[in-house]
Structure formats: C-alpha cells, structure tokens
C-alpha cells in the first residue's frame, strides 16, 4: 500500500515536471520532411538506383497519408466546437493580485526662491495590496454564473468592518439563442469615451482619468441583448435598480430604464440610446466610433432635459463650520448638452501609443458664473469669519472648484521597449481648458524581472493667467494646494492574474 502511494506521488510529480518542461521546437528539415534518400512520394524523380517504389502501394492508407505529412481530421456535427467550449464541468477560479509601494514627496510651491528642494512639504507612502477573486461556472452551454469580490489593505476600516465587497455577481442565460440576458450586479458597457464618458449614466463610478481602462463598478440590473440576426446591429435594454443603502425601501417606480441601439454605417459604429429614471433628468445619447487613416476616433453626445448635477448658485460666509454657506441648485426645464470626442493612434513598430480626448461638460458652470463664485469664495478666504478654520475653508474651496470647468482635454502617450525591451516611458496630461490649468505626469518604468517593475515619476500641476487663464484660481493648482510638484519612486511587486 505504502509503495503504491509512493508510486502515485512519483507519477504525479513526474507528470508535473513534464507539463512544466519547455516544448522542443524542431526545425531540422530532414527530421520534418524525411530524407531525399528515403522512399520518394508521388511525383518525385526516380531514385538514382532506378528502382520504383513498389512498397508505396503496400502501405496502408493511414501510413500513406502520414508519410505525406497529411493527417485526417474527423469533423464534428454542427455547433459541437462551440458546445464543448462553453460548457465546463469544473468551476473556474481566478483573479488578479496587485501589489505596489511608492514613496512620494510633494513641494506645493517649488518655483519660489524660498523653496528648499531637500525639504518637501509632504511625504507619503502609498501602498497598494489588493486582490480580486472570481469564480466562473458554466454548468450548461447556455447558462453561466459569475461572481467576483475585491479586498485590499487596510483589510478593515476604523470600525473593524472587513474591507471585502462584492464587485460583480450575475448570471448569463438566453432565450432561444436570440436574446441574451444578464441579471445581477455587473459592469455596464455604455459609453465609448476614454478619459471621460458623459454618455455613461449607468455605471456607479466615473472613469478614473489616471487609470482609464480599469473596470468600473456597475449597478444591479437586468440586461437584455438582442443581436439582430445576420448583422452587427445590437439592441440593448436595461432595467436598473438604484444604488441605495436600504434596498428594502425600493419600489418598482424607482427602477431606471435605458435602451441603446448600435449599428454600423460603413466603417462607423453608431449608437443611439435613452435613459429614464423617476426624479432624474432624462437623457438621450449618441455614440460613434470609427477610423480616419490610422486614427481611431470616438465621440459621444448627450442631451438631457435638465441636469442631476448640483451646482453652487451663491456663496456666503457663515459663523459655523465650514464657515461657508453654499446655495445649491440644478439646471431644470431646459436642454443640457454635453459631448466629447477623441482619438487613439498607435504604431506597433515604434511601440508607441497615443490617446487624446476633448470633453465639453454642459452640466458644469458657465465661465462667468464660475469666476464670480470663486471670487466670492476668495473674498471670504481673504477676510475669514472670526474663529474660522483656514484649513477647512481651503478644503471647501477645493471642493467647489474641483470639476467646475466646462472644457477639458486629456492626452496619454506611452512608449514601450525604449532602447531596451524592459524600459517604458509614458506621459499623462490633463487640462481644464476653461481656466487653463492642469497636470502633467511623466513616468519611466523598468521591468527588473518578471513581476517586478521599478518606476520613477513626477506630477506637475500648473496654471496660467495668460489668455483666459485663472492663474492661482485654476482648478488643478487649487486642488493640489499650489503649483505643486510631486516626485515618486516605486515598484510594482508580484502583480498579475491567476
């Protein structure tokens, strides 16, 4: 018995070693095609000895085909290739692990003579240790259940609540292979923008401009997808549950509804859709993607009847924290337009990729209103109420100015394999064109070895008072606390998919 167990363990280890072993690639022509001295195949010139290949006809058909380098393949019945692929006996478990440590030093106003390059105003140690774990079960060809959960360090909040949350949980099923349904909590595909997507009114989180390709959290919804047979026209319909803390308070009337039609016009894919939810501004959207030469282009247009965005209408000082009283209002009973357009371009021979986008945010402030409100806030800051907290006031002003522009632009440039295969550089630039402020973040990274990458980067916040620039009132310098510079050194450690 013991011997049998040892044999079994040995066999398993041996099997493991074999599967981990490299595959030997044989490129020797004689080994692959045989030698000219061997029996020639049909059509060959007679051998030098003048003998004919009688043995050719004594070989079995299988041997003959094998000799000729042709294998017979038995083709399955209709759809078998798909059925075998979609149904699995085992549940697949996988995920992603992210690990990184960065050291950051920030100088809030390094461009003055008093600035000390050796004495940063702030230092921090952003550390990422997170994971997403998923399961993917396909008990039937037409039925799938998928779920994923996220966790990250710190693993509990201040109240001791564990930092674990369900990110997606849904099932896929269909009606007659014609209407494909997904019910549950899942990311919604809606807009086409890269840095900004005003058309995407469904997902719970906005695009992170510093990580635009990251998966976004979606709401609980029932999605019906109808690919029109024989075309690449797609009809999507959604019923969405609002994201509320107390689900028991929801009523049927709280559900939101959205629909979208996607269709091709030549090399362009156009999308037209609408969104409706009680007590929210209804929206009509249009999306377009296509190409012009080597540029991929995309665009979104959104027309809402009113807006759901709260805008400040007046700012006054107050005697109690936060010492500013902001009156809020929404645009109502009038059409509100937002739109965006952008491009991506890549040259694989140069390992170079560029993406750019312009965003018009019609739900934000008119330029004149924004300036008036900022001036009011600055007046309060200049003559603060007695006993007020300067820090709290500054934070309030940051919140007021953040995202207050109507015109934004983003640009991303990345080049891999610079000089060596392991060296990459990238540049991210975001600008508020309404007040001419922005940030520029160049990064250099070097893959030391697989799963360990070192990087160095800087982030420059800038603003100008030239042209229509707001100078010190520019969004990005206000949010950063000044024309700040942040330097960072860090490493990605052991990240990957499993």
């Amino acid at each position, binding site marked *: 018995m013991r011997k049998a167990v040892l044999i079994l363990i040995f066999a398993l280890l041996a099997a493991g070693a074999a599967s981990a072993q490299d595959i030997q690639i044989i490129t020797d022509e004689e080994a692959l095609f045989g030698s000219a001295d061997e029996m020639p*195949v049909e059509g060959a010139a007679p051998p030098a000895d003048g003998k004919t290949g009688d043995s050719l006809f004594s070989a079995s058909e299988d041997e003959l085909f094998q000799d000729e380098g*042709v294998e017979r393949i038995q083709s399955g019945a209709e759809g078998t290739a798909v059925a075998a692929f979609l149904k699995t006996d085992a549940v697949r478990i996988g995920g992603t692990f992210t690990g990184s440590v960065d050291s950051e030093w920030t100088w809030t106003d390094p461009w003055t003579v008093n600035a000390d390059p050796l004495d940063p105003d702030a230092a921090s140690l952003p550390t990422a240790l997170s994971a997403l774990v998923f399961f993917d079960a396909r008990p039937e060809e037409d039925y799938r259940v998928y779920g994923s959960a996220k966790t990250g360090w710190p693993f509990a909040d201040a109240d001791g609540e564990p930092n674990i949350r369900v990110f997606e949980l849904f099932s*896929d099923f269909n009606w007659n292979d014609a209407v494909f349904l997904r019910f549950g909590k899942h990311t919604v595909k809606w807009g086409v923008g890269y840095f900004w997507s005003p058309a995407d009114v469904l997902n719970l989180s906005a695009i992170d401009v510093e990580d635009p390709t990251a998966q976004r959290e979606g709401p609980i919804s029932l999605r019906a997808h109808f690919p029109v047979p024989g075309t690449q026209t797609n009809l999507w319909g959604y019923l969405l549950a609002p994201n509320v803390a107390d689900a028991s308070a929801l009523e049927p009337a709280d559900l939101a509804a959205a629909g979208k039609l996607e269709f091709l016009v030549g090399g362009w*894919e156009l999308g037209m859709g609408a969104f409706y939810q009680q007590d929210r501004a209804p929206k009509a959207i249009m999306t377009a993607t296509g190409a012009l030469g*080597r540029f991929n282009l995309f665009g979104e247009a959104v027309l809402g009847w009113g807006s759901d965005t709260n805008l400040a209408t007046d700012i006054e000082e107050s005697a109690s924290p936060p010492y500013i009283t902001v009156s809020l209002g929404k645009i109502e009973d009038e059409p509100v337009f937002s739109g965006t357009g952008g491009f991506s371009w890549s040259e694989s021979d140069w390992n170079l990729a560029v993406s750019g986008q312009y965003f018009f945010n019609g739900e934000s402030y008119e330029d004149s209103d924004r300036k008036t409100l900022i001036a009011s806030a600055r007046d309060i800051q200049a003559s603060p109420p007695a006993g007020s907290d300067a820090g709290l006031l500054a934070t309030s002003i940051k919140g007021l100015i953040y995202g207050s522009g109507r015109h934004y632009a983003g640009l991303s440039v990345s080049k891999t394999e610079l000089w060596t295969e392991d060296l990459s550089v990238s540049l991210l630039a975001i600008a508020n064109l309404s007040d001419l402020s922005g940030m520029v973040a160049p990064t250099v990274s070097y893959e030391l070895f697989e799963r360990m990458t070192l990087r160095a980067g800087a982030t420059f916040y800038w603003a100008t008072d030239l042209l229509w620039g707001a100078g010190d009132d520019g969004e990005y310098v206000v949010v950063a606390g000044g024309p700040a510079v942040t330097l960072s050194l860090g490493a990605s450690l052991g990240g990957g998919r499993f």
Partner: protein
Amino acid sequence: MNKLIRGAAAALLILAGLAPAFAQDAAPDFRKLVETLDSIDDFTGSDFSGVFTIVTDKPGKRQEVTQVRMFRRDSKEQFLMLMLLPEASKGQGYLKEGDNFWFYDPTSRKFNHSSMKEALNDSEARNDDFKRKKTLEEYDIAKTGEGMVGKFPVWVIDLKAKTNDVSYDMVTIYVRKDRPLVLKQEDKSVNGRLMRTTLFPKYADVGKGKFFPSQMLIVDEINTGEKSQITMAELSVAKLPDKVFTKAFLEQTN
C-alpha cells in the same frame, strides 16, 4: 499581449489554407499555381474553427506559449478569435466582420470598435493579416525551378515584390508537386538576405477535399535562436451557430 495577438493573427492567415488535391507531373502554369495557393485561403461555403498553439523560443528568455481559439466564416468575412493562453490575456478576443473590428477586454468589459485600415486598435495585428492574399498583385514571379524538400519533390518559385507595401521584397516558396501545398517559404530582404524561413511539415485533411497546415515552424534567420512553432488542434469545418460571430458570444465566453 499585443505581440501574442499579432503572432496569432499571422498564424491564422498562413494556416488557413484549403487545398484541393491535384496531381502535377509536368511544369505547371506557375501563375495559375500561385493563384491556386492564394485561393486555398478561402472558406467560402463552410465554417472553420480550431485551436492554435504558438510556442516561441528566444535566447535568454523563458519560452512563451500562446493559445487562441479561432472561428471563421469567410462567406461573410466574419472572424472571431479568443485568447486562451497565457493566463494574463485569457478572455481577450477579437470579432471581425468586413472592415469592422471589435476588441473585447474582459478586464474592463468593454468593446473597442475600429475600422482602421492599417492596423488593429491597440495591437500589433494588422488588418492585412486577416485579408485574403493576392500574391500576384504584390509580387512578380522572378524565377521557377525544381528541387526537393526532404523526400518531397517540389516546385521552387521565386517571387519579387512590385510594391513597397509588403513585408519582404523577395519570397521563395517550395510547393509540393503532387498537391498545391507549400512546404517551405523563405522571406528575403531586397538584397536577397534570408530573413525568415517557415516550414509546413504537416497538413490536415478536414474532409470535403480540403487541406491546411496543422503545424508550422518559423525560424528567425536574423536573430539566431529565435523560432516559433504553431500547431493546430480541434480542427473543424462543421457549421457554426450564427451567434458565434456576435458581441454576445464574445462576452458570453468571458
């Protein structure tokens, strides 16, 4: 991942040949033979699916293994490719119909559409990699002859580029005399320097008189030691459900 996609795309192009058997004793009409080789990359009238495994060796690097599952319907210019390996790229996929491509990224659950003529969005795979070849529009036949590849008698055809839009200025193909099956291809620079050799030791007979390479070996003649092996499995020309060539299927699989 981009390189993997491109490698897979190139493999699909080359491996997708269909070859009706024919006998050829006397010197053939070589233009017609080259046209036949081009036309065998045509699945019109039948669907095609298979799993491609690409193993790449580079000196000083760990061996890379890429696996893709591919579905084709040439009658409608439809194509769907799913990445199976490496694990980091698993679930990514391409859907193509005519000049329109969609790249699906399961991480962001987004479809990226492109109709770019020159290159696929965010990848090194070129649109031309998916197009049917028309060799004689790009190359002239410069010279023909006979030879042997292993034990196989072959026609040797030297091609010379007549446009600048090709990857290699000179190409030599070795075609079996008994069937229009390429056994070997040599890609050369404008001055005749050998850049790449591709060997096709095995073909698959999938029925209906159709054949295509089931094993391919690519040797980089410039970077010594760099070579790749591409093998195909689970080959089928059985009809595929229409849903395969839809966004719904691409999403359903990942």
